[in-house]
């Protein structure tokens, strides 16, 4: 049986968080370890829960997603972070996210197939790391 992937969701929109929870619930074998409404909470919760994957919005009031991405990758480079944004066509924002270490930039509205494929790649990596550790 596949082990569960721990995911932290970060978005200032409650509806977007609810939608992501529903999509990930449908994929299955995923544990949502936290819901953060902004960048500062994301940094704190990532340190506490050490998720396998963070799905984080770029544009948020207060500390934005790119600033939080920089801090989390600096503190915990092993955590995979995918940015979700309606600005994915703006090459500059997406490029900045990749430069800061994002493993993917997912556009809004969501393409569920892309989220599934992202989860699959994290699951594969997770399984490989667990096997190597034995």
């Amino acid at each position: 049986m596949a082990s569960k992937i721990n995911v932290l969701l970060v978005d200032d929109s409650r509806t977007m968080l609810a939608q992501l929870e529903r999509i990930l619930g449908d994929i299955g074998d995923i544990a949502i370890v936290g819901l953060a409404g902004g960048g500062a909470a994301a940094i704190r919760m990532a340190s506490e829960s050490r998720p396998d994957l963070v799905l984080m919005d770029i544009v948020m009031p207060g500390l934005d997603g790119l600033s939080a991405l920089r801090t989390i990758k600096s503190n915990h480079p092993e955590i995979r972070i995918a940015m979700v944004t309606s600005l994915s066509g703006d090459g500059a924002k997406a490029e900045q996210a990749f430069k800061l270490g994002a493993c993917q930039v997912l556009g809004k509205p969501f393409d569920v197939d892309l989220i599934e494929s992202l989860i699959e790649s994290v699951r594969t990596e997770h399984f490989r790391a667990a096997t190597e550790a034995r």
Partner: protein
Amino acid sequence: MGVKFFGQFLIEAGEVDAGHVREALQFMEAENPLIGQIAVAKGFMQAGDVKQVRAGQRNRDLSFGDLAVELGLLGSQQLVEILQDQRSRRIPIGHALVHLGHLASDRLGLLFDAYKADQAQFDVSEIPLPDGLACRRVARHVLELLPRFLMRIARIQSKVGEIHVFDQIPEFAEVRVSVSIRGRRGVEVALVSDFEFAEALAMQAFGLSASDLDSELVADGVGEVLNVLCGNAASGSAEEGHRVEVGPPDYDADLCDGWIVDLAVATGQAAVVLSTF
């Protein structure tokens, strides 16, 4: 699903991975000349002027070129010449990936054609907009994309109607959410609607049931749809070389002037208000 840049399209198509794109971006950053470098090479600016502009950027949210012009260190026409030069010399990401051996050169043209076909649905045609409206390019993208977005993400049929001078908030406007878009000037895009439209939008766009929703969550859903719409419009504008910044939704929109765009919708009532600031 939305507007995307070529590197992201290649990742989604499984042609390259994020590491390849990151490497290509680093290569492009090293190879593509900066505005300041070109300005110095052309004799338009001195090295000290470049330092002065970079220092100024720490306190001002302006591009290097715009700030250099504002500080009187570069002429507007010189900036246009530099930007043309920079664009003509810029190595695009596809070529960078080929150069680094991450993409076969004979696949580049084919993949770029597929990318263009994928993005063709986001092309916008000319629609008449009032004089005095700021960020006209992105405002046009907003109005062009709106009916397609409502249909695609919420299955709500709609049609953009006439544009009038805004004189009062419509009586039906129980839900009012706005998003600010900033370029050289700014435009505030507000979606105003009755509760029936807002609830249908929130439910269908996010797969929620009526029992999941309270009035705050309905407004949040409308705000997120508007945010996604404006973000995609901004991305379309950026593709045309005009970058703008999109702010988070404002749920306490203070509507007092601008233009109101009639919106014929299959569920409830709605309109868009555009205000310049």
